[in-house]
């Protein structure tokens, strides 16, 4: 089987911001042989869909004095006092996380931020600018100073292109359209991955001294979602199947402004720039739920408020499941300069021009707070005690450091993917140059995966994969969504177990080897079923409400019992085994408080 093996010093899975930063940084720091595998072309990665901005304390702008929290911004004249600080960014992030974020990791996130953003700029990223030529900044939900650095409303696109160009410049080798289907961990040492070359259908093993996952989020488990088709949580499912733990999976963020019915994102920058949320009576309903921050309260709170408005009959559109995002008062010029892409989206998909009409929106599944637990250098934890899996790294949305805790603030995740992708790159370089070994693979993973694919092809059962996926998505949205309770979660767990059984009777329609996306979609469906069970089990056990996890039967946060991270391992019986890990808090600086906005 030797012709099936490829060897590199480092293999990175995922070509979004996290994976590409790691690969580029490792290469820049002297590792010669770095490869990235991506199931879609690197520039198609979902990081490119990010709109609003990337957080960093730069102190380039401030609110105009006397205009209040929603007033206009101006550049800070040279020599005048800053309005923002690391402590403030930390506090906002910690409060946003409902105190579940690890404060040592948050400190690193915040302090590395200005340097990462400036590095992007030096690498040629095109940011919007202040009149005197500095990087422009806007407000974002849950942030108490304007610190979202942006490029109109296509920030992710320009960041992704910039870092991809740099990786090319540093001779990182790209395997584009290679679907990774298995992670090889033996004796707690990562030894490589197994992947399908999508073009030929050939299954190959890629061995490496270090394996890094930057495979992105898991929003495709929900029916209404802002996430791409590719966001099927492959990385979390593969790591879990290979014996690594998953952390805080029950925390899934719903974004308040998905385009009604479609779920595509209308960036929070719409509200950051001054947009209103309106119910059927024309009221700015956020005044009831967050009188101070109004529309710029954090996402969990705004989404819950919207859901309450909808549940109490104040929604809009024929089914009452929508609300309005009103930007008309911003005026044509501002919308064209700062929000051209979302305006275009609303015209294309809702036939509404935001300049003249309010845009119908609804909450949409958006971000995966949970993931593979890591240190602040991207090293993957093997357990709650803090032991490591040798040679295995992760960063970005697939990972859980944890900087977002129970709820992420907007613009903190492009930042997370960049900061921790870069840190993982440094750690990988040190690891490889420090004499890491290429460990042999003793089992035959290629054969195992061949057999799995053959079984899927031979199966020819009565079930269509899509029917199973659709039932899963509906169940997750209705029973493990914005509001949760014991009865619903139990029923969701039952449904998932039933769907896992039904999956054994599926049929793959395309059995060819050339560019078989029917096969990859089937493997993705299996991943959805795997990690959704972990989400629901974690949510069922956690009998409190914290951040994005909101239990109607346990409406209060319970620090006494639940100020801790959920860790899930795959048990002998194939079911998640939960354990818990302490949260790192700086008790003297940021002790838990009631979370009010």
């Amino acid at each position: 089987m030797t012709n099936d093996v490829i060897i590199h010093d480092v293999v990175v899975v995922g070509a979004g911001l996290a994976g590409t930063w790691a690969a580029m940084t490792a290469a820049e720091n002297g590792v010669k042989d770095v490869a990235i595998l991506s199931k879609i072309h690197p520039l198609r990665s979902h990081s490119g869909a990010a709109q609003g901005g990337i957080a960093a304390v730069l102190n380039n702008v401030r609110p105009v004095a006397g205009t209040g929290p929603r007033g206009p911004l101006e550049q800070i004249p040279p020599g005048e006092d800053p309005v923002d600080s690391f402590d403030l960014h930390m506090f906002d992030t910690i409060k946003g996380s409902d105190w579940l974020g690890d404060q040592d990791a948050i400190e690193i996130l915040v302090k590395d931020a200005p340097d990462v953003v400036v590095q992007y700029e030096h690498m040629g990223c095109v940011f919007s600018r202040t009149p005197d030529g500095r990087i422009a900044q806007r407000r974002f939900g849950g942030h108490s100073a304007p610190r979202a650095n942006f490029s109109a409303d296509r920030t992710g696109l320009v960041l992704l292109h910039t870092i991809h160009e740099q990786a090319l410049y540093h001779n990182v080798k790209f395997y584009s359209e290679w679907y990774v289907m298995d992670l090889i961990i033996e004796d707690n040492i990562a030894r490589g991955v197994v992947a399908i070359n999508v073009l030929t259908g050939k299954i190959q093993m890629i061995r490496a001294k270090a394996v890094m996952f930057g495979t992105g989020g898991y929003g495709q488990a929900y029916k209404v979602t802002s996430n791409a088709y590719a966001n099927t949580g492959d990385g979390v499912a593969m790591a879990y199947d290979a014996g690594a733990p998953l952390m805080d999976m029950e925390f899934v963020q719903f974004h308040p402004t998905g385009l009604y019915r479609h779920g595509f994102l209308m960036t929070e920058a719409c509200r950051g720039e001054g947009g209103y949320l309106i119910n059927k009576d024309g009221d700015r309903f956020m005044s009831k739920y967050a009188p101070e921050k109004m529309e710029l309260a954090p996402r969990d709170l705004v989404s819950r408020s919207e859901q309450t408005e909808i549940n109490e009959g104040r929604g809009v559109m024929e089914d009452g499941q929508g609300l309005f995002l009103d930007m008309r008062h911003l005026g044509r010029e501002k919308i064209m300069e700062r929000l051209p892409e979302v305006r275009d989206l609303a015209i294309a998909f809702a036939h509404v021009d935001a300049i003249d009409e309010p845009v119908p929106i609804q909450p949409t599944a958006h971000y995966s707070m949970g993931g593979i637990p890591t240190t602040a250098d991207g090293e993957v934890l093997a357990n709650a005690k803090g032991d490591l899996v040798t040679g295995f790294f992760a960063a970005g949305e697939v990972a859980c450091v944890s900087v977002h805790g129970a709820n992420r603030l907007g613009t903190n995740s492009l930042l997370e993917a960049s900061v921790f992708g870069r840190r993982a790159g440094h750690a990988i370089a040190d690891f490889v140059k420090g004499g890491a070994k290429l460990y042999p693979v003793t089992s035959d993973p290629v054969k195992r995966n061949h057999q799995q694919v053959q079984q899927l092809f031979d199966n020819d059962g009565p079930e269509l994969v899509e029917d199973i996926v659709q039932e899963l998505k509906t169940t997750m949205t209705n029973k493990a969504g914005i509001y949760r309770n014991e009865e619903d979660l139990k029923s969701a767990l039952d449904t998932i177990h039933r769907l896992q059984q039904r999956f054994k009777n599926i049929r793959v329609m395309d059995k060819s080897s050339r560019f078989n996306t029917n096969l990859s979609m089937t493997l993705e469906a299996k991943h959805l079923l795997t990690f959704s069970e972990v989400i629901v089990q974690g949510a069922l056990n956690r009998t409190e409400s914290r951040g994005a996890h909101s239990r109607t039967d346990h409406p209060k946060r319970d620090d006494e019992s639940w100020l801790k991270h959920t860790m899930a391992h795959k048990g002998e019986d194939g079911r998640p085994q939960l354990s818990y890990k302490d949260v790192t808090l700086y008790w003297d600086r940021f002790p838990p408080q009631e979370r009010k906005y």
Partner: protein
Amino acid sequence: MSNDNTQRTVTVSIQRFDPDVDKKPHMQDYQVEMTKGMTILDALHEIKTHQDGSVTYRRSCRHGICGSCAMLINGRNTLACKTPLIDEVGHKNRVTLGPLPYLPIIKDMVVDRTTFWEQYLRVKPWLIPPDDIPEKEFRMSKEEVNALHDAESCIMCGACYSSCTVIGLNKHYVGPHALLKAFMRVMDPRDEAPGQRLADLDGADGVYRCHTVFNCIDACPKGLNPTQAIETLRKLAQKRKKFETTRRKRQQHLHEPIPAK
């Protein structure tokens, strides 16, 4: 604007081709129940997941930002995810789909983009910064940023590339997508090597190969204007030395605030 409340069965006619089994491409028809707001990509998803899993196309983001799903829809290159089905089926209740033209077919709507990406690499898409890097950001004016708007909005979907008649005849031509990227680097005040870049594009397969047929503008789903960028590059290539001098002067002030107007 779409009239959205027409629920009916429509025919989606797809050009099928798997080089491993087919001698040449053939058309295959599928019936789809058109629902409100359905896009071409939604219709393809319905066909692939419920009728025929072998129908093959690329897609990811679903909303026109990742550039995966460009294909030939009723004879026009565009994004399947941003095209409403109802706008395309007409009174015959029928839409025809195929791969982007001028590129080798891998399977059905999936084309081989090797030359497309090679040309992108050829223009050295990365910034070549000056030696003197400031501690904070380089200063750029709003006007300088605006000039890059078209180039930085490009999603590399290839709709322009495969509508270009020059590409149809000559795969050595750099192509509109890569020239737009080159334009972005040439125009960026932070780039140190605009002269070298312009010299590289000056050859027979560079800026002069464009016949200004404007197909790329019609094809671009983001409404960008590669032809104009190419024309600008052509003009600058003619006064390359002068442009280099201007750039060098500009770079002396890259660390300083943009003066107020």
